[in-house]
């Protein structure tokens, strides 16, 4: 991940890279992120721009998967926005109602945008969480795959 870190000409991080880490932070757990945060050098502080708040996202879908849009129902989502002393603004959005998780996701998003931290955090925080998520996804997939049907045709004895 760190080897291929894309940078824009102005030195800021590429959108796809940030989208990736935001998604990993959202799918991680609150405890996991708190533990990583405590491992960082102490004294890292941020201020709240938008206090952690639980609300709703209306989940949209499409008729027939591809057609007209409709509102399926809502999902609970918690969000938070913080600002580092160095000026980076981070946003955290997580499904569910865990405020600590949203706050930590926002804090990591802010810190990841600081170029002194980006590579380090991608390697030491984002990559291991991503690996864990991938592993559990693969384990599930292997179990599901065992339920795939192998069809075989029975020979009918009508011709003799």
């Amino acid at each position: 991940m760190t080897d291929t870190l894309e940078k824009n000409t102005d030195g800021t991080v590429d959108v796809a890279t940030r989208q990736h880490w935001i998604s990993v932070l959202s799918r991680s757990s609150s405890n996991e992120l708190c533990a990583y945060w405590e491992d960082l050098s102490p004294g890292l502080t941020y201020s709240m721009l938008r206090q952690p708040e639980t609300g709703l996202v209306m989940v949209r879908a499409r008729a027939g998967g591809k057609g007209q849009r409709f509102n399926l129902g809502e999902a609970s989502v918690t969000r938070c926005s913080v600002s580092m002393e160095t000026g980076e603004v981070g946003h955290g959005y997580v499904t569910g109602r865990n405020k600590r998780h949203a706050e930590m996701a926002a804090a990591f998003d802010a810190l990841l945008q600081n170029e002194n931290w980006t590579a380090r955090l991608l390697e030491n925080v984002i990559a291991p969480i991503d690996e864990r998520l991938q592993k559990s996804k693969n384990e599930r997939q292997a179990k599901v795959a065992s339920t795939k049907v192998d069809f075989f045709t029975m020979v009918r004895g009508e011709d003799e």
Partner: protein
Amino acid sequence: MYVAVKGGEKAIANAHKLLAEDRRGCPDVDELQTRQISEQLGLGVSRIMAEGSLYDKDLCALAMKQARGDMIEAIFLIRAYRTTLPRFSYSVPVDTSKMDIDRRISATFKDLPGGQILGPTFDYTHRLIDFTLEADEQVPKANTSEAGLDDDMPRVLDNLLKGEGLIQSEAVVEDEDSQAVGDLTREPLEFPANRDVRLQNLARGDEGFVLALGYSTQRGYARSHAFVGEIRFGKASLVIEPEELGFAIDIGDIELTECETVNQFQGSKTEPPQFTRGYGLAFGQNERKAISMALVDRALRARELGEDIVAAVQDEEFVLSHSDNIQSTGFVEHIKLPHYVDFQSELELVRRMRRDLEEKNISEKQAAE
């Protein structure tokens, strides 16, 4: 005469205390943890999420516990809770073709790309009570397959029938972003209802009601001979585009069950004979609901397809006005609450009618004599 009565506060407070004690049940038995409910009664939680119209497993598990397993009461709690929360945004429409598949089957095509994946299903079980579950039995471990799943699991109807033009296509209007998407949580139901509103209504509609209506189409009321084109259950990404970011972010997975039916269509003055579609989608693992919803969605497309409306299931006023179990239960159950005054006036009325009749009979009798 109208007599206002007041009272019962003490009885009500005590009834709630008794309820709380009964909910807990015998204290010798371990208290049920919400985690146990969400992990071990997952399909019940799915139903509460679908009909409560709120994706939140932990909260729906808690609602089930508080409601003592009464699903409609739990759904009521969830509907009430959601009204206390602000709405942040609308998601980008979920892409069900990119789901992480847990189950995916087609009843119409045997050899579909990606294969038939049975997943965790009750199908093909013998429906025999498993008494080993009464004890702490050893759970058999799921097998794994090295081969894994195909990366590409195309949605069946998108690929297999469309090439020949044999199936109705799902139209997306060009200036989609300028069109509002109907929302029953914001605007009251109005008729005629568009498909967006119908699908939202059915997605949160009562499973039993939608099931019964779906069954009615199979028994011949507005028969449209349906096949299951595909059912899939799995996890789809929830994607939003926060204004402050200016780009889309994937914030987690939600479990969805999707069903698409293929229905025969004789053709009309404007349309050649072809297959038509019904669509069902629900939060969580909710296969019965998704299939039923697809059947009812197809039946409600009668107007658009120029079919005669001959059955209840095609009548959108009937279907959409009665599908919501919170509305239904509110109105049905409210008649148990005190109606003393209403009933007094009814009583008066019946007494007077009887008196009138009696007097009439007497006077007729006297006239006859």
